[in-house]
């Protein structure tokens, strides 16, 4: 099998001592930052991106794999012990996990989350390795009009899945698309929306936007909430090990969560929160002791956590094979690729197989490291949770500005950080989702490129956009994503269950 040859080649890359070290550093940093309250995986990746600027591409992407998984793990630890999910895909984990922690069963809750993440991450990464080559084969036959349709699908699903209404989601998306226009148009050399400011000619950096929206916006809303946002840390009492019954109750939810999470994450629709909610609902129905749900049922932690991690690996399928980010975290990872002049997509598998398969292989390694390292280090992570808020947020802002200055030492960039931070605060205050802004910024220019390429082939005739069956199917799906919730409302008379904001 080709895939296995490629994967074992990738393992050779990932197992080089230097790369193992990168994976280790990534896992540790990712967990340490991800565990801090209010910091989700997207911000973890955005804050740590500048550190990897001077590394070689393979090393930095491997470190990224570690940061990605570490950030996810840290996020679930924080939501179990603190009940403040840093991202919406941890909301469900916080639901049951925090109840378990309050009942003095924080240890087993953390353990089932960690082992479930490992099981799900490993199976889903195998899925990624198996599915990716097929998608690549398919994607090679895509024309620019198909890619454009694919991006339209990603736009609509991202805006429909995040936030409390489709209007709000689309508003966030279009703010991102508008920001993506800023800078020099690569095809005509014309400056757009730069108003004569030289710093704007290069466009808005994805990392600057993400750090501003997530770190500065979050800090502003927390400080503005004042005493409203007080938090209680649940101490981890007793053993961190699961007893026999915990194991018996956990292993099926792990597997079910994985099989919900990976396919949904791998679809261009993406997102990790839908599978976590589905898994929670499923476990609640299947559980022998349904009355335990709401009071700390271990199934309610095991299933959603597995679904969450499996979806996180699934999101890498469209990212690596099509260059299509479907979550804020994936959008920032795409920016990480672009800083080395690489564009993920079918071609990357042909031109840089070592790098892609090295990355996939290092996902396995990061997963294993997390399992071995994190349970013994729970005490350390708990101590990070206990940092007083003035110091925590002071530190977050220091690192946010440090990363921005490190990437581009200009005061205009810092000014943008401030302006976008205020934007992030306003969006949060009025319930607009954040993720579509980031996705719009990075995907907008790519969509424009495909659109113009398609129209250039047809010499400006827009009919070409609606001729290929692939494109038509994708548009139909987009329409469903946009108007589905409305249809749901019309048919059942109830509001569709849409997820919260991903962070």
């Amino acid at each position: 099998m080709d895939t296995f040859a490629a994967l074992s080649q990738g393992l050779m890359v990932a197992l080089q001592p230097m790369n193992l070290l990168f994976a280790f550093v990534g896992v540790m940093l990712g967990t340490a930052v991800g565990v801090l309250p209010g910091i989700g995986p997207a911000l973890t990746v955005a804050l740590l991106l500048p550190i990897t600027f001077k590394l070689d591409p393979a090393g930095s992407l491997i470190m990224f794999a570690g940061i990605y998984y570490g950030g996810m793990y840290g996020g679930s630890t924080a939501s179990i012990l603190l009940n403040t999910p840093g991202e919406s895909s941890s909301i469900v984990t916080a639901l049951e996990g925090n109840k378990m922690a309050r009942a003095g069963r924080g240890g087993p809750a953390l353990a089932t989350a960690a082992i479930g993440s490992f099981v799900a991450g490993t199976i889903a990464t195998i899925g990624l390795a198996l599915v990716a080559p097929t998608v690549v084969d398919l994607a090679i036959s895509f024309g620019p009009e198909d890619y454009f349709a694919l991006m339209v699908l990603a736009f609509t699903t991202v805006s429909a899945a995040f936030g409390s209404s489709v209007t709000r989601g689309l508003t966030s998306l279009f703010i991102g698309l508008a920001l993506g226009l800023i800078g020099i148009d690569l095809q005509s050399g014309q400056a757009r929306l730069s108003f004569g400011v030289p710093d704007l000619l290069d466009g808005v950096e994805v990392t600057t936007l993400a750090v501003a929206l997530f770190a500065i916006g979050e800090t502003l809303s927390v400080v503005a909430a004042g005493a409203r946002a007080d938090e209680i840390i649940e101490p981890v009492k007793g053993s961190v090990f699961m007893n026999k019954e915990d194991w018996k109750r956990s292993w099926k939810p792990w597997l079910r969560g994985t099989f919900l999470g990976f396919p949904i994450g791998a679809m261009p629709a993406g997102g990790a929160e839908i599978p976590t909610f589905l898994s929670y609902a499923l476990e609640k129905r299947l559980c022998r002791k349904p009355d335990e749900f709401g009071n700390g049922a271990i199934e309610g932690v095991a299933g959603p956590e597995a679904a969450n991690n499996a979806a996180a690996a699934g999101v890498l399928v469209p990212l690596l094979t099509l260059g299509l980010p479907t979550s804020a975290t994936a959008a920032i990872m795409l920016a990480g690729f672009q800083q080395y002049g690489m564009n993920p997509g079918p071609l990357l598998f042909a031109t840089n197989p070592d790098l892609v398969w090295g990355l996939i292989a290092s996902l396995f390694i990061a997963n294993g490291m997390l399992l071995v390292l994190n349970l013994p280090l729970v005490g350390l992570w708990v101590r990070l949770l206990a940092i007083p808020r003035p110091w925590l947020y002071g530190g977050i802002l220091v690192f946010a500005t440090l990363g921005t200055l490190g990437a581009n030492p200009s005061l205009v960039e810092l000014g943008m950080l401030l302006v976008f931070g205020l934007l992030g605060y306003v969006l949060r205050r009025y319930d607009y989702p954040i993720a579509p802004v980031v996705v719009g910024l990075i995907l907008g220019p790519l969509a424009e490129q495909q659109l113009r390429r398609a129209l250039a082939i047809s010499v400006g005739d827009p009919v070409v956009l609606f001729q290929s069956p692939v494109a038509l199917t994708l548009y139909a799906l987009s329409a469903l994503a946009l108007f589905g919730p409305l249809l749901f409302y019309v048919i059942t008379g109830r509001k569709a269950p849409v997820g919260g904001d991903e962070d």
Partner: protein
Amino acid sequence: MSDPRPVSTHGPDKARFVIAFALAVLSLVIGWDAWRLSGINSYSAVGPEVFPALIAAGLALLALANAVEAVREGAQDRPRDEIVPMAWVLAGLIGQIVLLAFGAGFALATGWLFAATAKGFGKGPLWGHFLAGAAMCFLIYVVFAKGLQLALPAGPLERLI
């Protein structure tokens, strides 16, 4: 944020009207820029103005949709935000930019940011946090500028090494 669901009272939601207005302005700015670009002769089949025009149109529609939702959903009771702590954090961020503009260097400017943020979250004294923050940021400067070769702005303190 885990605010309770806002309760609707009568009258339209003023805040979302303001957002709708801002979107309309943004749409006009982008539309104007697209119009400016369309006047420039370009050699590609599809010029640089097409995509901005689409986005301007989308923003105009969304301005309308937001205004409609503002009326339909009605005024919302949102918890009051505290201005003074926010002002401290903003003063920290703006102060950092000003200090850097005057060449104070990374450690002093970011030390101020740390102190002002801590103050915003209710922890003083400002001076103590400024000194501790500046010391911490000096250390960060050494690690990042020397170890990772990131070009951070240098000031009088940073030039000592």
